[in-house]
């Protein structure tokens, strides 16, 4: 063999607030009880996954001025769940999504540094930048950020957090009872950051943590988001899970690294992925179809189109053709708290694309929404799925995947039991954890190295 096989990274995304989750499935348990998180984390750790991933939302989603009730609603606090999970696991990484708009660097830095200590080096931070006024109504700053400033704040937030992490070098604590020296230096944790977004100074109060800094993830697909990732992140949580789209994204983002003085192995591309796994490919296709129908009811489909149309579509027949009216332009007020409505592309253009797609494939409203939202990344027997994952990774469409099963908490169990061993047999996934920290699992250097 000429080039050695790439090693695959796998992570587990706790299923939550989105229409991927089939909460009506009889096997679907609580998304809040800690036992669900324990089950999920134990499965991921047994399968030697790199890490566990939690998304975040800071306001219940609304549509037409009412709380959206068709998907799972509610989630626990990210830091608290991850810290508790650190107590019942030993190796699996703990990645938390934490927003940079509705937080302050001193507080978030000390939470992540604490999590890294309490997990002995397994913490990661997915920095997201949702900025909308709707979410802002739950916060002290009240306000929100102009959209153009979301990454300016995120960038400076992260830079400031790094200054705080770096304010302790790791050799400060002597803790020598005989000489009475607890600290070797009087100025441990001293920092000063004077910038556009933050003007703060003082003493950071958490000593340097095992990983030095938590691993940094980015999830956001805009030009600014990709640049931010290329400059700052250790890994990207992306949406591009097919061969062509994945390769294009992979090339684009890895191609940006050199400009920031970085090499391609310093940024991992990890798309979100879903799956339908069964004994045979045919059964898996059938299973996938059944899951899609459960993920997208007629109601869900209409509600989904309203994100684009920005107007009440409840009068339409979900089994019929797409609305012939144009979307309502301007400020999106109908569906709030969803990232899809934050993209700010011209809705008329999106509507035109959707209509073309529906006409070309002869799809009803519900079929169209199934087509665009409820697509499993991997469908097939364990053999087929293992081969597909490996192929995508070896062909540089990704460095691995963040898997979100459609039922919680047991939806990962069969994948772990059936697909992982096949990847191990191929020599593309670890049999045992080689290290104990998340940086080690991801093959990332320690910042002090």
């Amino acid at each position: 063999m000429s080039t050695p096989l790439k090693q695959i990274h796998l992570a587990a995304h706790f299923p939550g607030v989105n229409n991927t989750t089939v909460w009506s499935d009889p096997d679907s348990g609580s998304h809040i009880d800690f036992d669900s998180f324990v089950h999920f984390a134990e499965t991921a750790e047994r399968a030697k996954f790199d890490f566990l991933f939690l998304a975040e939302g800071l306001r219940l989603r609304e549509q037409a001025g009412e709380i959206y009730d068709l998907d799972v609603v509610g989630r626990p606090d990210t830091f608290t769940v991850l810290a508790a999970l650190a107590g019942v696991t030993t190796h699996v990484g703990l990645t938390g999504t934490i927003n940079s708009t509705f937080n302050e660097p001193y507080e978030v830095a000390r939470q992540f540094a604490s999590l890294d200590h309490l997990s002995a080096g397994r913490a990661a931070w997915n920095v997201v930048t949702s900025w909308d006024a709707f979410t802002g109504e739950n916060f002290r700053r009240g306000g929100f950020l102009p959209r153009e400033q979301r990454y300016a704040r995120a960038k400076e937030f992260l830079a400031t957090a790094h200054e705080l992490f770096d304010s302790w070098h790791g050799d400060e604590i002597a803790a020598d009872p005989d000489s009475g020296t607890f600290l070797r230096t009087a100025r441990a944790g001293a920092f000063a950051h004077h910038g556009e977004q933050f003007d703060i100074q003082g003493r950071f109060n958490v000593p340097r943590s095992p990983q030095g800094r938590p691993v940094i993830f980015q999830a956001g697909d805009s030009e600014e988001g990709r640049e931010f990732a290329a400059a700052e992140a250790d890994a990207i949580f992306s949406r591009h899970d097919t061969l062509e789209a994945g390769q294009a994204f992979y090339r684009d983002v890895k191609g940006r690294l050199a400009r920031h003085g970085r090499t391609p192995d310093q940024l991992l591309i990890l798309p979100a992925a879903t799956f339908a796994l069964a004994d045979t490919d045919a059964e898996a296709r059938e299973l996938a179809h059944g899951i899609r129908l459960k993920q997208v009811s007629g109601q869900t489909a209409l509600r989904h189109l309203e994100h684009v149309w920005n107007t009440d579509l409840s009068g339409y027949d979900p089994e019929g053709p797409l609305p012939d009216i144009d979307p309502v332009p301007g400020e999106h007020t109908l569906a709030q708290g969803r990232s899809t409505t934050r993209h700010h592309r011209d809705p008329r253009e999106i509507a035109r694309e959707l209509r073309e797609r529906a006409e070309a494939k002869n799809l009803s409203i519900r079929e169209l929404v199934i087509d665009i939202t409820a697509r499993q990344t991997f469908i097939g027997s364990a053999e087929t799925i293992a081969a597909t994952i490996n192929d995508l990774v070896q062909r540089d469409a990704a460095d691995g995947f963040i898997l979100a099963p459609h039922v919680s908490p047991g939806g990962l169990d069969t994948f772990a039991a059936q697909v992982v061993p096949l990847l191990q047999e191929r020599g593309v996934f670890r049999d045992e954890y080689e290290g104990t920290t998340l940086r080690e699992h991801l093959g990332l250097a320690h910042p002090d190295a």
Partner: protein
Amino acid sequence: MSDTPPLHLAVALDGAGWHPAAWREQGARPGELFTARYWVDLVREAEAGLLDFATFEDALSLQSSRLEGPDDRTDQVRGRLDAVLTAARVAPLTRHLGLVPTAVVTHTEPFHLSKAIATLDHVSKGRAGVRVRISARPQEYGHFGRRTLAPLTLGELQSPEGQSIVSALFDEAADHVEVLRRLWDSWEDDAEIRDAATGRFVDRDKLHYIDFEGPHFAVKGPSITPRPPQGQPLVTSLAHQTIPYRLVARSADVGYVTPRSAEDARAIVEEIRTERAAAGRADEPLHVFGDLVVLVDEEEGRAAERLAALDALAGEPCASDAEIFAGTPAALADLLTDWQAAGLTGFRLRPAVLGHDLRGITRGLVPELQRRGAFRTAYTATTLRGHLGLDAHPANRYATA
């Protein structure tokens, strides 16, 4: 059995202990203060002693002997982990002990804190509380940069201007607690319906906007996190004088106070009960706990010797906002029952040296109190509210039915 209500006991965990030289005593494990194992061992010891709960100290600045700023000392413990995360880390490894982290409410978001404590309650299956504290340290303002506070000396803090600053901070803290409590109620217990027939996961009529508006912040709600198992996790707060007593009276389930004598305790309890009545909450249960720094040894005179040795190591006598007790378990039991008779319903003991005096409490004091019929011999409840004899699941303010 006597008819005095049972005594409640909590332990306050902080660094190596509450004596500044604690980290230098044998068994202190000063090199492990930032490891999970250290905290797990402490809470397991507290749980073996059947204590009601443990508190975890916290602050948004480096420890300092000065109010105005860092003291640049190298001979004392400096640095600490986030208290909410520490409490969460130990939660799955304990089963009964209540877990009460400290949170600074002056610079943080009530929305975040509310979901964090609700989640601590979920992960501990009903054992969460919070101790709220304000920040009057100028250096903490500098860590956030959103507002300013001129450097204050302790003397200035006692002046009329100082008191009006403090008063405003405590009013803001009361608002913060009000938001926590409303958010905990913003989901009714049975809001999640999973009604496959109508496709609805929740009954949105059982989710409530809290629409809080105050001078410092406004919060819309509802919470992102469903109502915690206890409904209302425990809210606690430390108070040394009238303004903070008022916060205890208005907002808390447990107040920690620092009397110097039984008489002092009686006066404080009376003042707080009067404030409680003025806040219209006279009928709602309120625990007033006495805080004490303790050194406990079976052998007569040993604790005092240890205190003297620790003071010598520190280079000065230990000073504390709370009374310092050094003596035998029997003498401590005498003091506690005496102060209990003055109206305190429990105590939060601050071990001078965690590696030693926590065991003095769990293996010395607790058996002594049990012999006197003054303390439980087994946990009789599984939740923190249950240990404290509070309504196990308080009614939801928004529920109409």
